[in-house]
Structure formats: structure tokens, C-alpha cells
């Protein structure tokens, strides 16, 4: 009788094991700014056109959401912080070049890194339209607009 009960118990445990499963509902990886159909903004604004790209693709967990040695202290969480951290600030990885040279995207490390697909590390590379939007903002003086 005890053996029978033990067998029932073992079978019960195995049946319970089948019940175990994950119930996680996770979000897809960020793809903002990666669509081939992205059209460059001719006169971009930092707050309306550029920062949303930084927010979606750069200021994410593990990347530029908090200052660390590994990201050279570069935080891109909001427009003011982003601008203070990139405009006329020497690159941590490629000193003495500046992250953003106002009016000159060709000399800006940021533009070179997104052009070469070195950044963003997370998710798919930025589309040419998105890259051109950021470059336009730099070429027009990297305004606080």
C-alpha cells in the first residue's frame, strides 16, 4: 500500500513538472531609426528629432543610461545632458578628437562612429536617413533647440 502511494506520489511530481513554465512577456529589441525608409530631417531639432534617437537607441540599460568607465562617462538620457556631454567634449575613446564639433560633422567622432556602425551596439545599425538627421543637426551648429 505504501509502495503504491509512493508510486502515485512520484507520478504526481512528474505531472507537476510538466506544469512548470515561464510566463515572461518581454519587449522586442529597439529598432527605432533603423528603417531603410527613414527620411533625413533637413533642419533637425535636438529635442524633436535627435534626442528621441538617442533615447531609443543609446540611453538604454547597459549603454548610455549611467556613467561608467566603460562608456567614458557618456550619458544620453535627455537633451540637456546629451548636449552637455557631446558638444565640444573630447572623445573618451578617440582623444583628442571631439565628440561633436558644432558645424562640422566630418570632424565629429559621433558622426564617424554611427557612420562606421561602431555605434549603436544594441540592435540593428541606424539607417542612412537617421544618420543624416544627426549629421544635419551637427552641421547646423549642434544647437540647443
Amino acid at each position, binding site marked *: 500500500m*505504501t509502495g503504491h502511494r*509512493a508510486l502515485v506520489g512520484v507520478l504526481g511530481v512528474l505531472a507537476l513538472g510538466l506544469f512548470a513554465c515561464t510566463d515572461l512577456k518581454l519587449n522586442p529589441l529597439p529598432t527605432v531609426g533603423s528603417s531603410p525608409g527613414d527620411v533625413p530631417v533637413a533642419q533637425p531639432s535636438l529635442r524633436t528629432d535627435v534626442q528621441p534617437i538617442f533615447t531609443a537607441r543609446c540611453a538604454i540599460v547597459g549603454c548610455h543610461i549611467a556613467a561608467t568607465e566603460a562608456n567614458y562617462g557618456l550619458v544620453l538620457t535627455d537633451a540637456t545632458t546629451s548636449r552637455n556631454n557631446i558638444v565640444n567634449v573630447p572623445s573618451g575613446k578617440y582623444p583628442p578628437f571631439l565628440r561633436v564639433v558644432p558645424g562640422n560633422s566630418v570632424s565629429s567622432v559621433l558622426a564617424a562612429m554611427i557612420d562606421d556602425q561602431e555605434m549603436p551596439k544594441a540592435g540593428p545599425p541606424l539607417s542612412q536617413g537617421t544618420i543624416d538627421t544627426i549629421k544635419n543637426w551637427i552641421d547646423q551648429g549642434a544647437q540647443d533647440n
Partner: protein
Amino acid sequence: MMRHRAVVVAIVAGVCAGAAFAAVPLDDDSNEAQIMGYYDAALAFTPLGAPEGALFQAGIDLTYVPGLSEEDRQTTFAGTKLENTNFTSVVPRPRLRYRPHPDWLLETGFFPKVEVFGVKPQMLALGTAWRFAGREDDPSWWVRAHYFRGDIEGPITCSEDAVKDDPNQVPSTVCAGGQVSSDRFRPETYGVEVMVSGAHLGRGGPAWYGSAGYSHERLQFDTHFVNYAGLLDDQVLVARLDRGAVSGGVSWEPWRGLRVDGEIYYAPEALATVRLAVAWGWGKKP
């Protein structure tokens, strides 16, 4: 003058240290928060057994933790790599029970800081249940409060395999060429639940119970990883989640003093799992 310099250096060092370890609050629905919540739910200090039995009981709980798929583990840290989370499928935890009164139960669960399954877990859990309606051997109602705190240290961000990977291969570019990480997952949970325990099913058969409750979770993840350039990536991520959960199970005493418990546990948007426990009881039943 030297003293002033020392003070300035100390202040600057303190400010810098504070900046380096500033906690980053995570959204409730962020993947990082959800995955931390998944493991916290798996480690929840549930009743795992009807509140009955001998005065003292000592045993061990076993919780089955379903492994996360590669797809799930790639959704954190913006998909730059796979998280190394599947250390074990079964989490053991010793548990002690003390029944000073027929209507009152005290419990504790713990795990010392020793390396098992590639991680160093340190866990403490406390629980207390009080019967507010019903009697022994009849359906009775209990309210139960529980607390859990853990500090689990291991190579979660960058495993040994990930640092060996080809730096040109996605998704391990962040880890490749660096050092194995030493991260810490530090969950803390406060919970309360209502339990109903029933009479034994047949003479000498198992007793059943069920519970439904709410818990507040404070989840912290400290990354500590040195990358290929020798630069430290240290972030403190904090999430606060609230969740309901249900559980139910049976407790059976096949031999005098020996107790066996089985439980099904479901935490929505986290996991459904099973727990088993074996315990030995002694002392006169209160």
C-alpha cells in the same frame, strides 16, 4: 595645508564614488526588471506545506526553475549579448518551522554564501502564519506574512564563454576580450497572503492547502565587468515590482515524523512552477 588637501581628496573621491554607483531606476515593464522579477518569483518564500505538524520541523525545499530561452536572455541590456542566467534548474533551500501554538507558525529559510552551480547565493527568508478562523482538521483560514532577501553573486553579465567569444561575433561584442563578470543580484521581497488549509484526504492521507497573496519586490542588479580595454562597467539597476501570486499543494506524513510537501505556484507574467519539500519533525504537536 596637507590636511585640507586630504579633506578635498576625500570629498572628491566620495562624490565620484557616489556618481559611479548611482542607482538607475528601471521601468516596471523593462526586460531587465521582468527577468529579475522572474527569478525573485522563483525564489519566493511560499508556504510549501500546510501549517500543521510537529512542534519543530527541519527540512529542505526544492524549487524547479524553468530555464530561460536564448531569445529571452538576449532581450536584456539592449540585446548586446546573452545573459548567463541558467545556472541551475533546481534551487534548494533549507527550511525550519516552529509551531509555538496550534494557531501560529514561524518559519525561516536560508542558504549560506557558498559556491554552488557557479554562483554564490546568500539567502534569508522569514515567514509567519496565524489562523484567524477554523480549527485543526477542518478547513481553516490563515493570514501569512513573508520576507525574503537574497544576494546572489555570479558571472551573469559576462560568462567565461562570452569573454572568449570572437569580438566580431554578435551578440557577445560587449563581453569579448574582457574579464568574467562578478555581478550581484539582490532581491528583497515583502509579501502577505491568505491561506486556507483543509482536512486530510482520507485517513492518514495528505492535507491540502491553497493561498493567494500580494508581494512587493525591490530588485537590484549590480554589474561589475571589466571590458577588453580594462575599463570597468559598473551599474546599479533597481526595479520595484508588485505582483499577485497563487499557490496550492498537499502535505503528507508517510511515516511518523517524516513530512513530504508538494506545491504548485503561479506568479503571472513570471512563471508557473512546482516545489517539493522533505522535512523531519519532532516535539509534541501543539
